[in-house]
């Protein structure tokens, strides 16, 4: 948490003033019991009505000043806390944008979303509470103690006994219950899991006739949860009664000890009242402090999680400054002896990959899950850096390009079709900020998306819900393909992006892409990753991957002769007649 405090830097004045004003307000509150004592001891005893009026004016004045101080403090702390969270959020967002795929893989984007939203809010609440209350409560406790001692040392001894006692009770109850509540939370997660499981798997549960068993399992988890919650509740239920008893017994003791002192002329009736009031103030302050500690602990936990994100550094460096201007006539993409592994210790995901892809070529990549197909294409736009060996694009090593320039050459269609809230037009503009309508329509046509977009109300301006939820899987995939095409890329990467399309659409798409790639002056190179033999069969070159190794490269016909694994894949998916037909 401490590291995050740098985001308060722009608000140093507010950060210092807020607690100070809070303390000022608290000190006025500490004076009130003394004023009441004066009214009793002086005003009533001497029947001095003027004095009573005066004291009441003092009280009102104290109230007004207290209010002003308090409002000032609240304003400063609100400003500082919001400033803090705004700066923190901005920095965090920028930091996340700077991370490379390797780090995104490690934490997962859902985690990052939680960090950006609820953890930042939690930290903000923490800062706000600390600024407002963290000094105030201890200040009241100590201030009330000092006041008590200044009134009468021997009676104040009661305070010295009661305050630690109350603190201990609060401390032990919290120490006892916090771990149980953590346990309770875990059990609740289990209950959520069972519910989710039985919703998603409703068909299977019923197919196997297991409803009763599932209910029994749930009831068991639920009743354990209830019992644990109850045992924590039993302890928590002690907090208020116990502190109430201690405080009030202390008041009894104050009255008793006070009566001796009054009898001896050491203390007045009003002062006894003041002592009783201080006791009440202390209890309230201690209870507030306990709540505050819970909130701050939570904020601190968020702080730790946020720091974990900040501690991640991008493993990929964007160091090249100079844009490369080349009209290279050779191969579009060349891999020479490329190795890659996701973790430093883990097994390599790619090993000794060497191949070249020419301009205007359609390159099919096939292999089982985990064979390294996606990994391979991810190295081209430098989502990852090769562990060893070299990836060249248009005659230059990929890391010699500024990232932006390199990635603008490439149109990527990821496995998961991610669309963004807005219109179809907005989404296509992701590919090219200043795309014309004509360019958009051309891209939609090639991506086999024109037909359904034209049917939609508003066409290009038809709304897209968050995540593209208002579209079918196949429609989403076609739009992501159009998005990549609209930027007129030199390299198009389709990472298993046609899996939701039926065979006919898939075939039409491939035909359109082939036309595009062969257009003169453009010579787009297409990388087509797929698990379907039928999808890659027609490619100019097919790369066959198995367990991270390139086990075959060539045309369908060549590979059928030379590559056993390719043949196996084809035969497992296609009939012999289909395999033979080209």
């Amino acid at each position, binding site marked *: 948490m401490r590291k995050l405090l740098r985001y308060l830097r722009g608000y140093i004045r507010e950060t210092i003033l807020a607690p100070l004003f809070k303390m000022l*307000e608290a000190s006025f509150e500490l004076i*009130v019991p003394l004023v009441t004592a004066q009214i*009793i001891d002086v005003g*009533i005893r001497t029947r001095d009505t003027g004095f009573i009026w005066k*004291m009441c004016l003092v009280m009102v004045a104290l*109230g007004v000043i207290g209010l002003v101080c*308090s409002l000032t403090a*609240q304003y400063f*702390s609100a400003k500082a806390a*919001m400033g803090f*969270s705004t700066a923190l959020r*901005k920095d965090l*967002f*920028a930091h996340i*944008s700077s*991370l490379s795929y390797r780090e*995104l893989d490690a934490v997962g984007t859902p985690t990052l*979303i939680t960090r950006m*939203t609820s953890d930042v809010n939690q930290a903000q609440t923490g800062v706000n509470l600390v600024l407002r209350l963290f000094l105030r409560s201890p200040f009241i406790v100590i201030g009330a103690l000092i006041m008590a001692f200044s009134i009468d040392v021997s009676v104040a001894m009661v305070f010295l006994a009661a305050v630690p006692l109350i603190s201990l009770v609060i401390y032990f109850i919290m120490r006892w219950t916090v771990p149980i509540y953590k346990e309770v939370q875990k059990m609740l997660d289990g209950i959520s899991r069972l*519910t*989710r*499981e*039985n919703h*998603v798997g409703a*068909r299977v549960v*019923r*197919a*196997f*006739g297991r409803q009763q068993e599932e*209910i029994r399992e749930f009831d068991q988890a*639920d009743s354990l*949860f*209830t019992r644990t919650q*109850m045992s924590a*509740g039993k302890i928590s239920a002690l907090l208020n009664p116990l502190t*109430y008893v201690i405080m009030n*017994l202390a008041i*009894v003791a104050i*009255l*008793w000890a006070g009566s001796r002192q*009054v*009898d*001896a002329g050491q203390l007045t009736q009003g002062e006894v009242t003041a002592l009783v009031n201080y006791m009440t103030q202390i209890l309230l302050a201690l209870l507030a402090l306990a709540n505050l500690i819970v909130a701050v602990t939570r904020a601190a936990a968020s702080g730790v999680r946020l720091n974990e994100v900040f501690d991640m550094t991008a493993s990929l460096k964007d160091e090249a400054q100079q844009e490369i201007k080349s009209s290279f006539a050779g191969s579009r993409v060349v891999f020479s002896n490329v190795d890659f592994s996701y973790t430093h210790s883990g097994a390599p995901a790619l090993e000794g990959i060497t191949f070249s892809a020419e301009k205007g070529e359609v390159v099919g990549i096939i292999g*089982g*899950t985990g064979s390294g197909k996606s990994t391979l294409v991810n190295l081209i*736009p430098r*989502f990852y850096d090769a562990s060893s060996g070299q990836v060249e694009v248009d005659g230059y090593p990929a890391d010699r390009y500024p990232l932006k320039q390199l*990635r*603008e050459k490439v149109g*990527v269609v990821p496995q998961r079709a*991610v669309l*963004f809230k807005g219109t179809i037009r907005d989404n296509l503009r992701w590919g090219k900020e200043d795309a014309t309508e004509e360019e958009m329509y051309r891209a939609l046509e090639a991506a086999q998306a024109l037909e359904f977009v034209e049917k939609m109300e508003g066409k290009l301006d038809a709304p897209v819900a968050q995540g593209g939820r208002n579209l079918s899987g196949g429609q989403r995939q076609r739009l992501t393909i159009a998005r990549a095409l609209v*930027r007129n890329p030199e390299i198009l990467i389709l990472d298993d992006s046609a899996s939701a399309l039926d*065979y*006919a659409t898939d075939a039409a798409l491939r*035909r359109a892409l082939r036309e595009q790639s062969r257009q003169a002056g453009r010579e787009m190179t297409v990388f087509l990753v797929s698990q379907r033999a039928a999808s890659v069969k*027609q490619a100019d070159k097919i790369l066959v991957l198995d367990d991270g190794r390139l086990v075959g490269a060539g045309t369908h016909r060549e590979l059928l002769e030379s590559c056993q694994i390719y043949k196996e894949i084809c035969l497992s*998916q296609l*009939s012999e007649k*289909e395999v033979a037909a080209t």
Partner: protein
Amino acid sequence: MKKSERIRQRETISRVLAYIRPYRLKIAVMLVFAMITVGLTLYAPVLIGQGVDQIVGPGQVDYGRLWKILLTLAGVIGATALLQWMMNLLTNQVTYHVVEDIRGRAFNHLQQVPVSYVDQSQPGDILSRIVTDVGQFSDGLLMGFTQLFTGIAAILGTIGFMISLNGSIALLVVVLTPVSLFVASFIASRTFSMFQVQSEKRADMTSLVEELVGGQRVVQAFSYEERGMERFDRINEELRTCGIKALFFSSITNPSTRFVNGLVYTGVSILGAFIVIGGGMSVGQLISFLNYANQYTKPFNEISGVITELENALACAKRIFDFLETPPEEPDDPHAQVLEMPDGSVDIDKVSFSYRPDTPLLQDITIQVKPGQRIAIVGPTGCGKTTMINLLMRFYDVNAGEIRVSGYPVKQLTRDSLRRNFGMVLQETWLKAGTIAQNIAYGKPDASREEIEQAARQAHAHGFIQRMKDGYDTWIVEDGENISQGQKQLLCIARVMLMRPPMLILDEATSSIDTRTEIRVQQAFEQLMEGRTSFVVAHRLSTIQTADRILVMKDGNIIEQGTHEELLAEEGFYAKLYASQFAQS
């Protein structure tokens, strides 16, 4: 509109009352305790005041009476604490048990709602009803209710005690307090609108973050970072501006009411002091009054908080009841028979079905399947192949016509026995969090380890299971995320293998399985189908070609049926579908 809402709210309340009925005794005790506690808490300041009255000055201390008062006070304190504790325990007990009841009932209901309901609902929605809403409902309702009750009791009690002490000061307090309430509600209404603006901005922020952080890979792929940062900065700044306002206004409620309370306190001091001077009251009684003046507004503030909490709780209750009241699956016919040892024949006789009345789907379908036959269902994505599965398993019931299994109309069979005679392997593999062995034995929990291993062997899963760290005891996390898609499929096959059902429903995976496993899955499917009537939603031509009959579906209907050769000869949709895979550029 408002009225109907109120009626609905009243309905919800009466249903809530039905749920807490079993606990009415405990609740009654709780309320009695609450009243006594409130009375005692209010009596303590009176005693303190009386105590102070015994210590007037040097030589004016009545130790005897003081001692008696202090003893009483100690007794009152002890009793208050004890009752408060017991009340807390009772509240906990009732609250948690009501939660357990309702949650259990909701989960039970989840198992009874028709599959159509499950299909239409979001998992997150049901989850939040069963987990979050139930929790909030009980917390809000019971805790809120006791707070409301004690709050009202405290207000009435305070007024009573004050009147008994001195009428005119009591009047002053009662008249001045609404000022504090007015201030609080004035601020609250202002704050509310600012909070609304803030929560709108916050929602904007969240959806932007979900989009750009969630889609970070795409952001980087399209070099969208700078454009994203611009959008982010704009919303972030807006959030800051409205956040400061919301935070500030929400935090001034406490100081402001404290200030008004201070004024009441001052008023009591003045008036009280004059009455004491006039001899109408003792100093101790003034102190009791000041004490009350301090406490009096607290229950008012609490009650206004409690009311929103209660409304929230009722809203949660409504969501739970809405779920609980979705009609369950139509129960089995009371005379339904248990399907035993079916021969494997399936007759689909003039069946019509649609999910929604306005969009007809299957119409007048007749198919006769002989024992042991293999039926392949093919067609483009979204053609309704799963509808067939839904009808055969009776996840949905036909609208017209009849399906007979082994000669029995399915409506005259218990659903359980019908379903257990079908082995089902779906494309969306579903595994439970648990060990591999538990998952394989899902349909037959008493299976021995030998039986489990044998089923795994037949499903070609034994090899990979053995290679795992804990073998058959390897723990599978929710959704089987720690094993590959192909392995999950093999486990699902083993799960069916163990049951040895006479009939099968299989949904072939379109992709996402690695080659080696793919071959194994196929072999496992073959083994499974051996001698069993099977319906296969097929994607592989090899499966289709060996089928005894192919049903070609399009737009929810069966448009062609026959063997591979027959259908090719027909030169219809199937032939086109088949040819599309040979598409030449």
